[in-house]
């Protein structure tokens, strides 16, 4: 290497060094300004060894600013994932450090890694801004609805199995001449059918015989007819199979609960009112977190109104005159809940 080239190289290095020192001076004098994180609109997330806090986030589309604070004892990396794809990430976050990440995010559902990459992922929902700057649209996405829908499916399957078991035991008891057991099992079966009321219309063909006519559970409890009881047990078994094989859509579940309440408001003296409201209660509870996220006031109102109805029904002789307006209020709530969850449009 010629000496001239060496001098050229050293000169370039010297120049770079001067630039770095200059930038260093600018940086040190500016530091107080840049240090304060942009408090407005930034989203603080604390990441511990096990989880993100909060672990469910709804943010507007665009470039939300995440402030990730590592509260764990380990170096972590924080990633926003779309399936396996890394959408944005920040590596080397030392314990106690806070870093800012301002990724461009399209509307949709994402996952956030929390602490160790093997830990359960947090949920990040990015919603399209609709022009309004006040309240964000917080309607749940399809992904949000998957959880409660799946849990309801489990509840429906369990109820239908309880129904089939009780009907079967009732038929056997009648064959053996044990009318007391038969009556108790038929009442239990009818209660299980009542809890299924919000979705039972989806299985009308199988459920129909259990609801009306000589094989209906209500009339069987009075007639205690052995042949009809066996027919009812067969219907209940078929219904149980159909329920197990079906996943009701979120809209069918929530709308079904609303329809049941509205029907009861027109017929507050219905003998199955208590069990049907128990079925509605399950749906309200399962969707409660999503309802609360979309409309906190509505979620509180539903809880209150449902409690009032349950209290009235718990009395020995429910007063239909009092129940009627209470059920009507709850029915209106359920319609609002359907809109709040974004399920009111038929699709």
């Amino acid at each position: 290497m010629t000496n001239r080239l060496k001098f050229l190289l050293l000169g370039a290095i010297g120049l770079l060094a001067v630039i770095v020192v200059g930038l260093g001076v600018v940086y040190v004098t500016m530091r107080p300004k840049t240090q304060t994180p942009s408090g407005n609109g930034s989203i603080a997330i604390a990441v511990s060894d096990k989880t993100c806090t909060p672990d469910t986030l709804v943010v507007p589309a665009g470039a939300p600013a995440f402030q990730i604070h590592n509260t764990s004892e380990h170096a972590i990396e924080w990633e926003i994932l779309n399936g396996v794809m890394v959408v944005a990430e920040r590596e080397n976050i030392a314990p106690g450090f806070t870093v800012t990440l301002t990724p461009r995010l399209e509307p949709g559902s994402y996952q956030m890694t929390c602490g160790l990459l093997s830990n359960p992922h947090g949920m990040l929902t990015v919603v399209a801004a609709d022009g309004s700057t006040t309240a964000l649209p917080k309607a749940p996405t399809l992904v949000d609805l998957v959880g409660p829908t799946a849990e309801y499916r489990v509840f429906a399957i369990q109820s239908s199995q309880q129904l089939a078991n009780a009907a079967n035991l009732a038929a056997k008891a009648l064959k053996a001449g044990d009318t007391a057991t038969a009556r108790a099992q038929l009442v239990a079966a009818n209660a299980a059918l009542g809890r299924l009321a919000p979705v039972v219309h989806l299985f009308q063909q199988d459920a129909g015989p259990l609801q009306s006519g000589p094989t209906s559970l209500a009339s069987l409890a009075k007639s205690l007819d052995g042949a009809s009881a066996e027919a009812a047990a067969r219907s209940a078994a078929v219904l149980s199979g159909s329920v197990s094989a079906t996943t009701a859509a979120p809209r069918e579940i929530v709308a079904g609960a609303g329809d049941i309440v509205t029907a009861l408001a027109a017929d507050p003296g219905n003998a199955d009112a208590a069990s049907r409201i128990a079925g509605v209660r399950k749906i309200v509870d399962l969707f409660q977190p999503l309802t609360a996220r979309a409309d906190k006031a509505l979620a509180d109102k539903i809880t209150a109104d449902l409690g009032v109805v349950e209290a009235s029904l718990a009395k020995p002789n429910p007063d239909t005159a009092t129940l009627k307006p209470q059920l009507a209020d709850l029915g209106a709530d359920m319609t609002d809940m359907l809109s709040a969850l974004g399920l009111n449009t038929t699709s």
Partner: protein
Amino acid sequence: MLVPFLIMLREGIEASLIVGIVASYLVKTNRRNWLFAVWCGVAMAVLLCAAAGLLLAIIGADFPQKQQEFFEAVIGLVAVGMLTSMVFWMKKASRTISTGLKNEIDAALSESNHHHGLALVGLVFFAVAREGFESMVFLLATFQQSSGVWAAAGALLGLVCAAIVGFAIYWGGVKINLSRFFRWTAVFILIVAAGLLAGSVRALHEAGVWNGLQQVVFDWSHVLPMDSPLGAFLAGILGYQDMPTASEVIVYLAFLVIALPLFFGVPVLPAKPRNAT
């Protein structure tokens, strides 16, 4: 303090390792005069990264992690190619050495000497730049965070230790007996290259480019986490990952399965001397 130290140790070793290997290789192939260019390349990369990091902090912009990952992947793949070709060149050279024709090394070198030397200096520059920018951003963060002066001290100490590791690799490479250097450092360099290759695949995933075969093969994050001293050291030198994905493991093993037998497959002592080309 420990975690910032280990983070900087790992990032630093990833760079100093390549510098150490290239520098000792240049000395061993009678190109000591290129060392000046190597140090210049390192200095320029460090200063450019410092400038870029400071600029980023001054304008308050986000660290472009995805672009950084893509850059890391590309440089990583280039490094894999160059390290591998170095190894096989050494193998060829050691054959000539064993036949006592030492001058033939110089003959082989003089032809493409200049271009090859420039390429190696380029590799050193980019290997340092690849880790330097991210390290600078991390270093500035340690000054800004409320965690106190120890985080910054730890991070700086980590960089110093990484530089020491780089020098150790350089000196080790220089001191070791010539034929042994060619044989065993070759194996070491091939394992390093395999780790770099796997790391590049990971970086491509984090850049959002490669999304196949992302199943985690094993999870050692509780046994040997990457922010433990040994984990950080192994991550820096061999590209150790505590939770590798299928694609990383596959390229790592595939590279070694192909490269090692190729290296050892042909006897090191040839039956008859050949003309060096």
